[in-house]
C-alpha cells in the first residue's frame, strides 16, 4: 500500500521534510490526504504530471520542526 511506504519513509525523516508519493493505485489519492490529516502532516501538492494523467502524485510536508 502506498500509504505504508510513505509512512516508512516519513519515519526516518525530520519534521518539515517534503515527501512525494508517485503511484498508479487510485486509492492513494484519497488515503494519503486522510493519513496526513490523522498524523498532522500537510498535503502541499496533488497533481499528476501532465504526461502521466493516470498517475497519482502527492507531496506531503511532514509536521514538526525537525
Amino acid at each position: 500500500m502506498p500509504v505504508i511506504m510513505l509512512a516508512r519513509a516519513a519515519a526516518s525523516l525530520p519534521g518539515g521534510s517534503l515527501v512525494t508519493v508517485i503511484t498508479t493505485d487510485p486509492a492513494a489519492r484519497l488515503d494519503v490526504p486522510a493519513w496526513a490529516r490523522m498524523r498532522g502532516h500537510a498535503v502541499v501538492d496533488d497533481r499528476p504530471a501532465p504526461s502521466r494523467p493516470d498517475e497519482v502524485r502527492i507531496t506531503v510536508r511532514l509536521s514538526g520542526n525537525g
Partner: protein
Amino acid sequence: MTRATPAPRVFLDAAGHAPVHPQARAVLLEAVDQGWADPRRLHAEGRRARMLLDGARESIAAHLGSRPAELRFAGSHVTALHTAVRGVTRGRHRLGRDVVASAVERAALLHAARFTTTDGDAPGTTALIPVDRTGRVAVDQFVARLGAGGVALAALQHANGEVGTLQPVPEVHAAARQAGVPLLVDAGSSVGHVPVSDAWDLLAADAGDWGAPVGLGLLAVRPRVRWAPDWPEDDDPWFPGGVSVPAALAAAAALDLARSDLSVEDAHRRALVSRIRTEVPIRVPDVQVMGPDDARLPHVVTFSCLYVDGEALVTELDRAGFAVGSGSACTSSALEPSHVLAAMGALTHGNIRITVPRGTEAAQVERFLEVLPAAVATVRSALGVEGL
C-alpha cells in the same frame, strides 16, 4: 471425550440481504402453494394469484405512503433504480437531458445515470453534488443545480447504506418541485428501519433489506411523473414479465413484521451501533469512525483502520466467526475503493462496514469488540507497520 465447539457465527452484513424472518419464510412457502398461477389469467387459479398479489401491493403501499396503483414490483432493487432512471430521462428528454444526484448514491443509480446521459444523439451530463465529511449532501449546491435548468431527473437517497447518514430529502424535494423536476428517492437502505416521509416523486425500496427473501425490488411512481419506456411494451409497462407472487407476499409479511417492532428495534440497534462507534476507537489505534453521531440509520456503522488491508481484515474476522462488509478496493468486487468513502474524503483502506440485522444480541456485539483488536493487530503485523 470432549470436543471444542466452534463459536456460532455472527452475521453483521445485512445490507440488502438480511437474514430471512422465519414468518416471512413460512408465508413464502404457503404462497407457493396458493399463488403459483399467472395472475394475468382469468381462471380461478389465476384470479387467486391476482388477489394475493393485490393484497401484497396494498399492504406494502400503505407502509410506503403510496397508493396501491402507484406501486410496481421489480425483480431487484438494481432493476428498480435502472428502470426509474431510464424511464424518466426518456420521458422528459424534451424538458431536460441532465441527471442531478448526490455523489454518494448507490452505484446502480449512478451507472444508470451515466448510461442514459451519455446515450443517444443529444447526450446530457450527470451532475454529482458533493457531500461533507459525514456524507450529507450540500443542499445549497443541489438546489442551485436544479435551478440552473435542463434537468430531466434528480436523485437523492433517503439514507446512505454504507455509512448510515440520513439525507435532507424534504429540503431537496421542495426545491425539485419548484424547479418542476421529479425527485427519485432511493430508500433501499431505510425502509423497514426508519419511517419514510412522502417527500418523493419516485421511491425505490429493497425487500431483501428488510428481511424478505431476495428477488424483489419496489418502485412507487406518482401519477404526475412523465415517463416513457425505452424497452418493449408489456402488460406490466414498467417491469416486463411481471413478478413472483410468492416473493411479493413474503415481502409484504416481512415488512409488516419489521414495522410492528420498528421502534423497539430502532432503540436496540441504535444502542449497539453507538457502542461500536464509541468502543472501536478506544480499543483499536488509528481508526476513523465515519458518519454523523445523530441523523443516521439505527443499524449501519462504518470505520477504517490505518495501514490495514480491508480484504485481509474481512477474512480474518470471518475466520473468527464474524461476517462483515467492506468498502475497500478488492473487497467489494471492485478495483476502485468505495465512491462513498472517496466523496467523504475518508480513509478508504482497511474499511469495515457493519449492518446489524434485527434481533442481534448485545453479547454478540461485545464478542465482536473483543475479537476486533487482535484481528486488526494480526493484519498489521503481517504488513510490518507497528510503530508507523
